[in-house]
């Protein structure tokens, strides 16, 4: 699947296109098929997101998994500070990234 990711302009937080808006959680990301560029242009113009780009991902049992480790780290947080990630209490989160 193709998913969109970017950052919130005011806070810098990593966000994912969920079909209607920008979520903090990668599992909310939807498949944008070939609409990525169009959505990015529209959403950046409206300042709902910036620095957005399209990435490959796959739907798995645990949710949406970005294809590249860099985006998985963006989705979760720094692997060396689990307490600062989106899943501080989840010991499996690190395995998911790697």
């Amino acid at each position, binding site marked *: 699947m193709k998913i969109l990711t970017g950052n919130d302009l005011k*806070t810098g937080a990593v966000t994912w296109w969920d079909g209607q808006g920008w979520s903090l959680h990668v599992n909310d990301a939807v498949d944008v098929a070939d609409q990525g560029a169009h959505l990015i242009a529209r959403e950046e113009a409206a300042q709902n997101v910036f620095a957005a780009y399209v990435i490959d991902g796959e739907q798995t049992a645990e949710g949406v998994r970005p294809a590249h480790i860099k985006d998985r780290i963006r989705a979760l947080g*720094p692997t*060396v500070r689990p307490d600062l990630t989106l899943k501080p209490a989840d010991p499996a989160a690190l395995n998911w990234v790697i």
Partner: protein
Amino acid sequence: MYKYDNYDQQMVDTRVEEFRDQVRRRLSGELSEEQFRPLRLQNGLYLQLHAYMLRVAVPYGTLSSAQMRLLGDIADKYDRGYGHFTTRQNIQYNWIKLEETPDLLADLAAVEMHAIQTSGNCIRNISSDQYAGAAADEIIDPRPYAELLRQWSSFHPEFLTLPRKFKIAVIASETDRAAMRLHDIGIKMVRNDAGEIGAQFYVGGGMGRTPMIGPMIREFVPLDQLITYSEACLRVYNRYGRRDNKYKARIKILVHELGKEEYTRQVEEEFQHLLSQGIEPPIAELERIKTYFVDPAYDASASDELDLSDPDFRLWVERNTEAHKQAGYVIATVSLKPVGGIPGDASADQIRLMADLARDYSFDELRVTHAQNIVFPHVRKADLYKVWQALNAAELGTPNLDTIGDIIACPGLDYCSLANARSIPVAQKISERFAAKQEEIGEMKLKISGCINACGHHHAGHIGILGVDRKGKENYQLLLGGSEGADTSLGQITGPGFDEDGIVNAVEKATEVYLDKREDGERFLDTYRRIGMAPFKEALYG
């Protein structure tokens, strides 16, 4: 250390208001991201992997305790309770909000700090020797010259859209503690035969994709021509540096492509012209700055005795302290590399503790080193034990300066969107694997970069590690024999790369070769230089 006068204060205050207005215009949509990006970069604000990252300048690595305390408070108030000290003596915060940045910068300005030009295609923070003003081997304190250059480079209207970033280092000793020749301009303060102080200029050094050692282009620039000469170097770069290819845009490429002689000729020609333009501050300005860099009020009766009966304290003293030029004092390095820890990170509480200790025991002054540690430059021996005890209780007492545990590592793929691989987990594993062998291995500068941009200075490591992307997976190359001192050399790649466990094993094999082959008194670097790459390659790849 330098204190702002009204002019300096007004400049940073104005800069805060300028940025506040730029943020307003960005949020209202008046400024596009493309137009805003260089403006926020020149205020230190990067878009990084998780959020905006702010890089606060620590000019030539020197801080007061009040400034350090504020850095700790900023970590709590605007970030997630910690900061990261970098290989250019700055501090970075990883979770800053754009809408809060102007207030953060205003808080910094209130203690004479800023994030001016810590990113962007401009002249960056000028770095220096972390032992400046305390070291026995310096000919003079390099920092007043760095301060003069800092003011000259701040908001310099001609040099804010250079082809690429520009990094300057200033030292004043034969021992190069600032990797001076790996900078765009490296300046070594020297004394000529007449006993006069002047500046020796090296231009075109750097790391990254194409590491180069900067050649000397001028043996002696008199002090009253320092700014004019620097201006000439920058103008030639601004006019002729490549702008067609981001990876060939540093001045090192220009110097390399023109050749040292031609670049020097162009600089000298520009310099002769600029001499007529009256752009040099009077020597009185340098003298004014120097008045802030006089020796602190040392206790002349301070005892030179040190009770080393506590073996842990003794180890720390032997490892982490340097002789001070003043009897009764030492230079103490606080390691930010606890075993298994994240190199260069410090919590807000740790930062405030270091601030308090500096206030009470180091004449209110600290330094940030480009090895990502903190220095208390002037500690009385009589106070050293209680300083160490306080540090130790806060996990700041690791006795590993310049050993295999004192790893320099960039933030890597855990934090940086440029990275190909994570660097911190590798540092943590190496730190743990070798904790017990640290003393046996001795002096070791091990440096890790998560990508070719080399922010971990891996080219200059006795052992260097470079993270790469190999078919979508993290992979690590091993380099040996780099050095950043007066004997600057660039590390050589051993061969094919390794995965994360593999690279730790590879480092172990390399140290085993060294321990097996070393002769009396040789450091790893010395043995490598003597026996060459072959025995290491043999051990690594069979």
